[in-house]
């Protein structure tokens, strides 16, 4: 399917201002189109952007084989199609919403592969978006960009560890033993990195 069919590009230039004066992003618009119109062109655009990231996430730390990584991509992308109606652009950034689904699906896949017998799915642990306060300002495109910018400037030892925790899904204790570091060192590096990045949100909140 051609990504230029269906919804035309020019729409992307208009619908970016929401009542609060903040710009939404292209991916939020895609999710809304999928939810309201089952728009396959929007879905294809979303696929082309996120599927390669989901695959990279699946392969981080060689957690999953290539076959399982493709399986995860399919699973996550289908979940996105099914659940788009539950996405509320005022409460979360599209990338956070997609990341959370990918994280949950990967956790469930790990558990399946390790023959965990559990009545729970990873998404049972995420609070329902419906009950969250709108905090668009916390997750605006701008803070996401700023966080990415700041990640490039983190000391290498901190980047390495938070990548293990977030992208490879390792616990602090597992990261400590893989890197042959004391648990306390791992914890303090994660805390330093995370505090710095969290601070980006505080800033964007104040500059409202």
């Amino acid at each position, binding site marked *: 399917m051609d990504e230029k069919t269906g919804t035309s590009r020019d729409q992307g230039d208009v619908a970016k201002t929401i009542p609060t004066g903040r710009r939404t992003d292209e991916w939020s618009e895609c999710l809304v189109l999928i*939810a309201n119109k*089952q728009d*396959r062109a929007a879905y*294809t655009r979303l*696929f082309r952007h996120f*599927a*390669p*990231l989901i*695959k990279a*996430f699946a392969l*981080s730390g060689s957690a999953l084989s290539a076959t399982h*990584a*493709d399986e995860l*991509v*399919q699973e996550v992308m*289908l979940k996105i*199609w*099914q*659940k*788009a*109606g*539950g996405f509320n652009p005022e409460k979360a950034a599209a*990338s*956070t919403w*997609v*990341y959370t689904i*990918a*994280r949950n699906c*990967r*956790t469930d896949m790990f*558990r399946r592969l390790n023959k*965990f*017998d*559990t*009545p*729970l799915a*990873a998404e*049972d642990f995420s*609070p*329902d978006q*419906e009950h*969250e*306060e709108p*905090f668009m300002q*916390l997750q605006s495109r701008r803070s*996401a960009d700023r*966080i*990415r910018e700041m*990640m490039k400037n983190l000391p290498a030892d901190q980047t390495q560890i938070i990548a293990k*925790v*977030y*992208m490879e*899904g390792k*616990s*602090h204790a*597992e990261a400590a033993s893989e890197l042959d570091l004391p648990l306390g060192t791992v*914890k303090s590096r994660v805390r330093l990195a995370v505090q710095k*990045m*969290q601070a980006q*949100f505080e800033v964007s909140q104040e500059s409202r």
Partner: protein
Amino acid sequence: MNQEYRVEDKVMAKHHPELDILTEHAAGSLSLAQTACVAAHLNYCHCCSQTVSRLQAVGAAMFESLDPEPVGDALLDRVLARLDEEAPLSYQPARRSGQDATPALLSRLMAGDFSDLVWKKVTDALRITPIRTGDPQFEFSLLHIKAGGEIPPHDHRGSEMTLVLQGGFSDDRGSYHPGDFIYRSANDVHAPRAFADEDCLCLAVIDAPLRFTGWKYRWMNPFLRLQAG
């Protein structure tokens, strides 16, 4: 982390998980039983919920900066072909009843009410019921302490997470009310005592059997060797 966060109609938890536990929770790297306990705290705590949202946004930013792995059009076509059978769900999130109600997650695990559970009597004051989560390492259980009752001094080879659900208790470091989250690391000895006027119900997640340290109680340790899972 002893901050108080006042939000209308919400229980104000005063004792919270440390940032590193919240980070592991947000990253999905905590074990199943532990993450269930943290999720139950979030049910009571607006402040930690917001922190977790921010920590998830940090994860999302990292996710977006990954080097993309090429995905072939064959996979896209396969997914597109399945869209019809996987119609979007008309989404109606379940409503959560009041803040002090049993966290939804816990209700699902218990598949019933507290009274339907099989409680093991450990002492006159203490009853325990293990709850199956499927976690192969961590034991997830409910503890019921009679009003004014004391849990014998104990330590643990691993960590212990506790979340107060009803009533409350105190130990040498503070007193804890519904929604409060307490984390004790290995070899931390403590002897919690329930408040005098109300029975206390809490959720505990431990990664090794509790060991009671007083000689009087040694004999009861086998009772506490709960089954993980």
